């Protein structure tokens, strides 16, 4: 996983609450067996009309936000489906960091698995940042995960933010969850042994491999 240490990029303002996963990436784009190339479908309905022409009023179709690497948005971003295709689409477009007052839980978790940083900030701070990045001259933000701080030309003092420490470490060093979990193999095996003994019905299903 690519480490996330410090990101300086244009931030796109998207002042809408409850942006759902169907809006981030419509279902038609889920018919892929790859993680790549989903940026083309990002916010597809908002970005393009039915004839696939760009909608000029959508922020990601306007300079300088066409090359946004950060999104500033409102409450409950990413609600709905568990599709990891939503963060993959953002990442493929070039967006690695999302600032919002709150996130839907599965989306929030999925971001960290892809080297992306979702940051929760209070609504007043978001409104302040939204105003700053809505002006082309002050659209650029710097997200410094080592210092837990956001800086920009359009804001007077650095804004600090909090991220769970383990998640922060994984992002900073690009650590692999599965490799780390396998170091707990003995504890996992001990749990399985206890289940076989105490609640054996959970340890078996009678299911067999498919022979199709």
């Amino acid at each position, binding site marked *: 996983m690519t480490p996330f240490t410090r990101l300086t990029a244009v931030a796109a303002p998207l002042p809408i609450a409850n942006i759902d996963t169907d809006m981030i990436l*419509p279902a038609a784009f889920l*018919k892929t067996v790859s993680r790549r190339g989903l940026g083309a479908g990002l916010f597809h309905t908002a970005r393009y009309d039915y004839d696939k022409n760009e909608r000029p009023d959508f922020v990601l179709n306007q300079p300088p936000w066409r090359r946004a690497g950060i999104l500033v948005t409102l409450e409950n971003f990413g609600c709905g489906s568990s599709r990891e295709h939503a963060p993959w689409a953002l990442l493929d477009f070039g967006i690695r960091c999302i600032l919002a007052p709150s996130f839907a839980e599965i989306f929030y978790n999925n971001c960290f*698995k892809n080297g992306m940083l979702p940051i929760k900030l209070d609504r007043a701070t978001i409104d302040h940042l939204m105003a700053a990045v809505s002006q082309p001259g002050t659209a650029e933000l710097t997200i410094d995960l080592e210092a837990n701080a956001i800086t920009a030309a359009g804001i007077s003092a650095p804004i600090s933010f909090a991220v769970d420490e*383990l998640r922060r470490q994984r992002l900073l060093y690009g650590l692999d969850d599965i490799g780390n979990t*396998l170091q707990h193999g003995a504890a996992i095996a001990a*749990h399985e042994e206890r289940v076989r003994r105490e609640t054996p*019905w959970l340890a078996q299903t009678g*299911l067999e*491999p*498919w022979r199709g």
Partner: protein
Amino acid sequence: MMTRPRTLYEKIWDAHAVAHLGSGEWLLYVDRHLLYEVTSPQAFDGLRASGSSVRRPELTLAVADHNVPTQHRAGGVAAIEDVDSRLQVETLERNVRDFGLPYADLTSTRHGIVHVVGPEQGLTLPGATIVCGDSHTSTHGAFAALAFGIGTSEAEHVLATQTLIQKPSRTMLIRVDGALGNGVTAKDVILAIIGKIGTAGATGYVIEYAGDAISALDMAGRMTVCNMSIEAGARAGLIAPDGKTFAWVAGRPCAPQGSMLEAAKAQWRTLRSDDGAVYDRTVAISASEIAPMVTWGTSPEAVTTITGETPDPGDEPDSARRAQLQRMLTYMGLSPRQKLDGVPIDIVFIGSCTNSRIEDLRAAAAIAKGRQVAHSVRALVVPGSAAVKAQGEQEGLHEVFRAAGFEWRDAGCSMCLGLNPDRLAPGQRCASTSNRNFEGRQGPGGRTHLVSPAMAAAAAVRGCLTDVRTLA
């Protein structure tokens, strides 16, 4: 030693916590892992890249449901015309073969929507942890299984380690007391709850549903309630098991039998919140206040009763909220303060992991019986599984529906989401028993009104949103 009273959620959590990782994160053991074609290919790619195998294949079941057409089922995968859809199902079949996993293929009698199949096969058991790369995994909480949706990276983690990295959720008790009125169903209960607490009202929480009105629901109704927990933002929904739960589980192919079933039942009886257990939040709703519900907007919280009307954005003081209400009304083609009863519809969809069980189909058939689908309406009934379809046909429900002008289809996710041939055209308005009314959810530009199966059938015969209580 006195132990602190625990909630049902805490009991299941404690029984599955394998190791503390620090910063409040734990490794949680997964008892059942369900897979389907859309969110799993990249997980298997990850396993291949790292040379990993699946730790517990026998605790895993795969099924293709989201992409599959609901007609011409006998043709199997080869009958899927859409190239990308077929590739996803073929990829799933290659993956289950390569990794030695159980799979209910398209022509299997066990095939169906993953959240219908799990309980039906007896994989869903009280006290189990169940995950799937689908947010409606919360369905299985109806059996007091801790069940929730995960991403594809997490699915890879479960395949490789049979565990997940998790932080404990906060707990919310939602009590629905009293008796539900005539024509009021489990779907109306959960829509009323979402309307009350909002689409992010339970973010960070696991909900436990309790109260007379919940106890009185059959297992299908309890699954409907838990299914839409995610629509309130919850990590999971739970209902304590009782005699109905045990009777439903007993005899299922993958459920314990004989003396092991008796031992299991003894343990399952302990799966209830202790007296004095503390929840982080409690919400109470009176069952008598719940009427047949219908959504009017593009979020499940944008819901009112069938006797209600759309809001007037002009009444909303917050400008962002006002803009959102206006955006929803514009998308839905509705006016401020418009009565919902009487809004003409084009399509009726009865199906999805929310409402495709035999009880749902019976409720819809009871309304359809002896009536005709309005000329302007196309109506689909899509059973949740091959077993539900077979049961429906044994009961003659297919004949009731067909005589009334409904299409009777094969099992799959169908028109719940625009991933297979069943979808709305731009501007089409649908009374749907599914779970999401997001913009474009049922097809680009499609307009969704979420309702119960009985309300959907009533809309089909009247040609418009209508109060099922005036038909019954």
